[in-house]
């Protein structure tokens, strides 16, 4: 959820372009109010759900939001083998830990640099 200033700004300046699969709202300024990429263009922004970070923008909207594309990719372009985009999982329980990470027991695969330490018998 956006803060109060953003909500007022959106109300007066913004035009709702669309919503992504998760319901985030994407806005564009009604007038060409920003310079970027060598030209004056319409500012584009997104209002996230509460507690989200910037990595949750799905690939369909990411290009449009960063002025790469003129329009977002349609939902129909999505292939059946594409899994839903989850955003950055770092710091969550779903975070990826490589083999040998302390979060996975800390037992990495053997390497040629390993040595076997001597321990006294008994």
């Amino acid at each position, binding site marked *: 959820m956006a803060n109060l200033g953003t909500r007022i700004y959106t109300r007066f300046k913004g035009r709702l372009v669309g919503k992504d699969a998760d319901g985030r709202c994407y806005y564009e300024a009604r007038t060409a109010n920003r310079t970027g990429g060598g030209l004056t263009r319409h500012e584009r922004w997104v209002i996230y759900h509460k507690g989200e970070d910037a990595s949750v923008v799905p690939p369909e909207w990411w290009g449009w939001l960063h002025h790469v594309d003129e329009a977002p990719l349609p939902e129909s372009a999505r292939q059946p083998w594409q899994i839903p985009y989850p955003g950055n999982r770092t710091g969550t329980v779903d975070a990826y830990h490589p083999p040998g990470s302390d979060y996975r027991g800390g037992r990495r695969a053997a*390497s*040629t*640099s*390993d*040595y*076997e*330490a*001597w*321990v*006294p*018998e*008994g």
Partner: protein
Amino acid sequence: MVKVTVDGIVVDVPNGSSALQACEAAGKEIPRFCFHERLSVAGNCRMCLVQVVRAPKPVASCGFPVAEGMEILTDTEIVRKARRAVMEFLLINHPLDCPICDQGGECDLQDQAFGYGADHSRYQEAKRAVKDKYLGPLVKTVMTRCIQCTRCIRFATEIAGVPELGAVSRGENMEVTNYVEKALTSELSGNLIDICPVGALTSKPYAFTARPWELKRTDSIDVSDAVGTNISLQVRGSAVLRAVPRVNDAVNEEWLADKGRFSVDGLKHRRLDRPWVRVHGKLQAVSWQDAFVAIGRRLDGVPGDRIGAIAGDLCDAESMLALKDLMVALGSPNIDCRQDGADYDLSQRAYYTFGTTIAGIEDADALLVVGSIPRQEAPVLNARIRKRFLAAGRGGFPIGLIGTPTADPTYSADVLGEGPDVLAALRDGTHPFAATLKAAKKPMIIVGHGALTRPDARAILASAWALAVETGAIGAGWNGFNVLHRAASRVAGLDLGLVPGKGGRSAAGMMSGGVDVLWLLGADEFHTAQIGPKTFVIYQGHHGDAAAARADVILPGAAYAEKSGTYVNTEGRVQRSFRAVMPPGDAREDWRILRAFSEVVGHTLPYDTVEVLRERLATVNPVFRVIGGLDAVDAAALPGPSDGGAVLPAPFRPVFDDYYQTDPICRASPTMGECSRIYVHPRTVAAE
């Protein structure tokens, strides 16, 4: 000298040189597979074809003798076409398995195919496949890759002196084989891997481990024997993956003994990587500080002459000097680097070094070996003796052995007897070999540790020196008196005076209750039961061997690959190695441990850097100032070692029974363990 023109460059080469040597003298690189500088010329790969003006066809330069005024062309269209054709023939039967071949990246065939190979193959027929041969636990064979250069056959026959490899069939069907399926019985078999120009013979322990371009190379010195073989340690990450020889014509030519080459995997096993202290009879892992404090407490109130130190066989000169300085600071005269109980006369360096020098063997014309088996104690040096033996021709280099040879020496030698009584017989001329020695212009005598580890070592040494003087082995411009050491640290230890001081005890005296606190610097070659039960033992070393299990405090040190060290070989040649990897865990360089401990007991040693320590080395003995060189010694001017009394009649014993299990590193090495099982104890394997 003969004047030859190579591509318009006029060079002078000695008579009898080959066209290939003339081309090398002119700076022209000639591709070759079968030709090797240190082997006989075979001339069967045909890759070295060059054009000789007025010769009808291209000639194989490796076997073509030069003649006065000869004009050689190495880079004409005819030569290039001929070499391309040879390469195409070689590649007909060579498999395209470079991606899975261990030679990839250091393969002569790969490199030369880059220059002379075609971009496609015209060959449509089936390729030849050859059954792999078993050559033992060290050399892996993929015989389909063999290009039949016969280098391995010539190496085994000429250098190693074990004619176990040969070829059967002819033409395309020729196969290099060992006739009977059994392991190669040579201590130099690892050199076959280096000498093979393709991937037919590769290292078995190193198979599929790394690629040459991944490896970091560090110059080092082999410590598995006292020859001081120059090696290059090849490292990836923090592991030494292999050791290969470096060329040093004065020491090892380009060979390396199997123990030095294949024991490097011992550096990854049974490593001491943290200090241990025995508390209530059990060893407990502690910090460095606690270990030092434990030793300091035990040393408190112990008089200097109840403290002793023994340096082992793999130590570098720096750590031995630090140990000696520490013992002097603690007021102890008990220090020894001779854990095998050997005895020498230390008044002159010529009495305990290999005076002829290794390269000097090639000038000798008679040899007497006393109480030594050079093939096992110094395989690379033995190859030099064999080289001399072959070069001298039949009867040109008579060799006599005193002792019990346990292996074929690889040259024909007369066993003159088993004990020191033969020396006496040689001196009074009653033995027929005495006349041979006298007739020789440059005879040499090698005294080994089979003789020097006896109680009558001094007497044998003196009588061998006297024999050398009487037979002319010591004379103007020739020093034929040699002591062959087997421990890499020994000569450095003797040079630094790591022998008991006035009133001090020797290694045996220290162990049998002569001291209360015993500091072992990598000393492991004795039965720990010899150490008295009351003795407080400090073991400083890199491998957990028997002595570590006996120790009360263990200080983890660095193995030879993990420190920059100075080593002195049996000739007295000072050589330096560099650090290839870091010591494991908490282990530290040995001289640093001793320096740190000296501060704890309040006798801080006066060196903080290795440079200062090396300056001190040179102060203690100026020989450490010259790295790699040797000063000539006028042995004839020396009075000879002092006589030590009566000679015992007992026969000379071999220095060790098992070539593959002589130091803590090779005892920890799985490869050396397997060699020991296959070569030394084959019976027990067969019985199981």
